[in-house]
């Protein structure tokens, strides 16, 4: 069985109203139910983590920019690692991801071992 990294991307809208505690609770449940479902199929290697919104990008010649979103509108919100036999299967498992409901997307990449 192969391992695949799921990279969750979402749109950043600096003007959006921050979610209410109820919305955050509901979102947490969706994520936990989805991850729990993958784990129940024994397809989850690591639940992974969410990423903070703050960040820096380090470039050649000692250039450091604040925030990864100077040039892009999508940021990586988090990642998980799943188990699947094929890329198709892995992509199928990613279809239930709650990020899709908020207009985000999931990049599925096989993890190559040495």
């Amino acid at each position: 069985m192969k391992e695949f990294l799921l990279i969750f991307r979402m749109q950043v809208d600096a003007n959006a109203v921050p979610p209410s505690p109820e919305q955050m609770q509901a979102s947490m449940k969706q994520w936990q139910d989805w991850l729990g479902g993958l784990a129940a199929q024994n397809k989850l290697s690591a639940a992974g983590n969410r990423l903070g919104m703050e960040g820096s990008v380090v470039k050649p010649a000692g250039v450091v920019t604040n925030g990864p979103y100077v040039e892009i509108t999508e940021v990586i919100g988090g990642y998980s690692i799943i188990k699947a036999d094929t890329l198709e299967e892995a992509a199928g498992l990613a279809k239930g991801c709650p990020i899709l409901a908020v207009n985000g997307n999931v990049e599925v990449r096989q993890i190559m071992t040495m």
Partner: protein
Amino acid sequence: MPLQHCGGILFMEENELIPHLFRTEYRKIIAVLCKLFGIEHIEIAEDITSDTFLRASELWGIKGIPENPTAWLYTVAKNKTKDYLKHHSLFSQKIAKDIQHNTITADEIEIDLSGKNINDSELAMMFAICDPCINAEAQIGLALSLLCGFGVEEIADAFLTNKEVIYKRLTRAKQKLKTQCIQIAGPGANDINNRLPLVLVTLYLLFNEGYYSASQNSALRRDFCVEAMRLTLLLAENDTTAKPEVHALLALMCFHASRFEARLNQEAEIILYEDQDETLWNRELIDRGRYYLNLASRGTDVSKYHLEAAIAWWHTNKEDTQEKWEGILQLYNKLLQTAYSPIAALNRTYALAKANGKEQAIAEAEKLQLNSNHLYHSLLGNLYTGLDNKRAVQHYQTAIGLTKSRTVKAALTQTMNRLMY
């Protein structure tokens, strides 16, 4: 259910007394002698202890029961040990060199059967037995034999096998511990970090062996649970081993054990949770479980025992509420992310049905692909009931075909028949 064996010795008939003392004292003497001699002389410790009980059964029948039978056993065991050490080269070659730097005689060796040393020795034995060089089944066997004083016949009964199989398994396991030169010593800080998880797994399995065993002998199964709890309590009451996960495991055991009376009928058949008479649940054990779960909440670690104990806590409230099933679902989500097991996957799907509705649960259940598991088909039978009774019946039929247990077959047939007529 008492956590520890208590007195009442005075009121016992002679024919009950020796088996009772065997159950409570054999393991104590064994542990102290094993710790004194080291793992390589484990058979000598067993022989001396068995001889002590043999002598008791011979003498007490003729001369009557001594005033303090336990003290009598300890004295005889001590004398037999000293005798053995005097008459065998073991003393000069091994014991004296190892423990007392060769400077004293057998008579001067102290065989300490105080409560404290018994506890310390049992703790040390627990850590020695749970060595990864022997498999889990053998660890449980050794724990039952050496730490709990069960006979080979009783262990065979629990594992639904014969005495010879168990005898061989125990002998092989002891041999393995000897060749690996496993130390029997009070666990140090390192051992606690490395070994405690293995000790807890063994205690957890030992408890489950009693709780879920297919054996019809319900008294014996109950004894297994009590012993697993006693040993876990030993860890919980020792400052060096009283870690949050120990308290969590003890809480889990208390919650499960609280349903012991309610979950088996007269024929030792399982009564399902929904059909249990909750007035038979042991409130005192539920309260103890809560107490240990509170202790377990110190610190930031969340072990699988924490999650399972929290699930078991929810189940101590029989009332069906959205909050309860949502709570259970989230705990199973976390538990499965910690460690996958088919049974957790099935239980999670049941909680999903209760919290999010049957339609979603059916879709998730069908992804589990546990087609050869009778519990999987029982679950699908349950989920399809009321939505598509024909499919429910098909799943119940598959489940009946897959299970080997007659009582499970009977229960499933009854449920299925209700759908058909």
